[in-house]
């Protein structure tokens, strides 16, 4: 009975599975025999990188990838570090946590890197954190959320180069306090970036004597923010803060202008600090205020500013090579890769030594600020490392 039923199955599974099994075994045999052929004269120092080159976070990940490639090429042109060439392995996480996690595993197990740079966004970074911790490989994230490096006791191997939202918020609030702004309405989008910014805005408002009169949210794909702005206007705040990423931050500025609300100053998050936004908005962006990473406004910095030199150099190199303006995100990658390189130079490629080196590193002048790491602080930046700017005539000027 049973055997006769077997006849009808068009596919002889048994035979096929056997064949697959054979192929399986054979292919492993082949890979096995290839082992040991990759001996090299001078072992390269390996940096792994995970960036969101595609997907929703791609406008962050792309400049990061470009920056990292540019730096490593430069270093290798100069003969590498201590005679070792530097190898950069970049994987795209497609703004997807699963892919980020797998990319990290691959970097650690297959490529055997000494340090990982990235991921680009907070979500992917948080997914990679436990992996790096378990493998004891230093991870230098380019994302903003403070959760990535706190509590430090559980994040011993994790560092990050992006200013925390907290710094941007504090810098913004301090500016407001000096201007006498007391009541603000906040808008945020429902992405990780917006949600994290909103948390910090709510948390620090009391410290600076600021009252939050409105707390509005919207989706990252929203086509119309009129309702939210109208509501905020009805509550008569002294200023509006919009904390979002992607097209909605442009939409926010347009709505603000079209509804004739320019008498209420609009503050944007540091995520707005990209020249592309100014190009799209044109005149509409006049008067928008935001904290910005020094990397973007290198030229505006006073000559005695410690970051003047590195920011201008990086901006020149990047803009010549890629024909596009630098962004804060590229700066995060610059910092992360340079931190890794400086660690290689100082202690070689042992992950544990790199971790200890980074934790003790002081006064490292980067694009996003001057880093002072400590066993309690794996970000190493303060609110001073963001600079308030205003949009004037389609360009940034220091806000006064």
């Amino acid at each position, binding site marked *: 009975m049973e055997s006769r039923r077997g006849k009808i199955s068009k*596919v002889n599974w*048994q035979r*096929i599975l056997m*064949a697959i*099994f054979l192929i399986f075994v054979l292919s492993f045999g082949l890979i*096995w025999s290839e082992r040991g052929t990759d001996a090299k004269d001078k072992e390269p120092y390996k940096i792994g990188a995970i960036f969101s*080159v595609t997907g929703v976070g791609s406008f962050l990940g792309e400049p990061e990838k470009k920056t990292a490639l540019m730096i490593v090429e430069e270093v290798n042109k100069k003969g590498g570090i201590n005679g070792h060439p530097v190898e950069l392995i970049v994987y795209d996480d497609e703004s997807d946590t699963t892919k980020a996690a797998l990319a990290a595993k691959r970097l650690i*197990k297959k490529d055997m890197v000494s340090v990982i740079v990235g991921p680009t966004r907070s979500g992917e970074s948080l*997914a990679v954190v436990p992996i790096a911790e378990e493998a004891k490989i230093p991870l230098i994230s380019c994302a903003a959320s403070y959760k990535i490096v706190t509590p430090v006791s559980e994040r011993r191997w994790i560092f990050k180069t992006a200013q925390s939202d907290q710094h941007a918020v504090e810098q913004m609030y301090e500016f407001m306090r000096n201007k006498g702004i007391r009541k603000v309405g906040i808008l945020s989008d429902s992405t990780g970036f917006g949600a994290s910014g909103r948390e910090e805005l709510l948390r620090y408002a009391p410290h600076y004597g600021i009252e939050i009169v409105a707390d509005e949210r919207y989706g990252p794909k929203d086509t119309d923010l009129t309702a939210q702005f109208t509501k905020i206007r009805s509550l008569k705040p002294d200023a509006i803060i919009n904390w979002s990423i992607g097209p909605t931050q442009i939409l926010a500025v347009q709505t603000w202008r079209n509804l004739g609300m320019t008498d209420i100053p609009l503050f944007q998050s540091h995520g707005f600090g990209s020249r592309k936004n100014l190009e799209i908005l044109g005149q509409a962006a006049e008067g928008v205020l935001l904290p910005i990473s020094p990397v973007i406004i290198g030229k505006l910095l006073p000559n005695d500013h410690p970051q003047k030199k590195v920011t201008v150099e990086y901006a020149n190199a990047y803009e010549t090579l890629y024909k596009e303006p630098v962004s804060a995100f590229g700066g995060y990658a610059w910092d992360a890769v340079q931190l890794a390189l400086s660690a290689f130079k100082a202690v070689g490629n042992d992950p544990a030594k790199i971790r200890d080196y980074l934790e003790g590193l002081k006064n490292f002048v980067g694009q996003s600020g001057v880093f002072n790491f400590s066993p309690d602080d794996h970000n190493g930046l303060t609110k001073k490392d963001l600079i308030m700017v205003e949009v004037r005539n389609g360009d940034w000027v220091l806000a006064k």
Partner: protein
Amino acid sequence: MNRKNLPGFLVFLVCIGLFPVFATRISAIQHYLDVMIFGGIFGIVAIGLSLLMGYAGQISLAHAAFMGIGAYSSGILTTHFNFSPVPALFLGLLITAIIAFSVGVPSLRLKGHYLAMATLGFGVIVHIIFSEEVNWTGGPSGLVGIPGFGLGDWKLKSTLQWYYFVWLWVAVSILIALNLVNSRIGRAFRAIHEDEKAAEAMGVPTARYKVQIFVVSAAMAAFAGSLYAHYVEFINPGSFDLVWSIRFILMVMVGGIQSIWGSLLGSLFLTFLSNEWLQVFAELEILIYGIILFIISLFFPDGLFPVIFRFLAQQLERRYE
């Protein structure tokens, strides 16, 4: 397990059992174990979806959402209520089953496009809830601090342990699915797929069976979601959106819509494709995905692998004769 499937299942067990022996020794493919863990987790979803789509003929664009409900149930119960993973997992399954039941009863009265749209709408609503209920779900930034899987003092630690643990459950899913398919209930599903009216006239309670398989399929997705949450120790809404629901459908379609083994192979194939083999295409991956799905659905609506296997089997048979 009936005798027809036994040899295949044994070969499967041997392959799965031996794979780490090779993988851990070769650095170039060591991380394949991790890919296999994800492939296995997605495989459980795909097997469930194949039961629903391939056998019972009902489409669902909400399977990522069900996976998410399982993942978030586990995540929230363990982080907010200090549940241990095992009871959290079972409570999560129960919650998912209840939700799937209440959605399934009205949805499955619909057919074709309308069923697709209803499940799609439900999936998007669930996704919005994951993003909005910040206090519980951590919102779009995600839920951190989910413990690894374990019971009492025993915890799953190494990748190898996880690998065997996940694939144990894949094997169980396959066993359940194969048994179900080769039973009166499985035949009834296929009958519903082919001709609902005739099935009803043969005494098959079609409405009840459709809801039952929907619930079972959703619960399998939730189980996979729970494993995912404990393995990655972090979840965010982005892992459970419409794109993932479509990916699961693609896995089933590639593997052969009416094939349990096929769906598992399909999920492995696509997981490796997008995480390993297609990395070179980076930017173009989504486009390539679309084209693959397009070609399969137009030219091989029964799945890609069955066509290939049928061809191989024919060749083999010709060789033997």
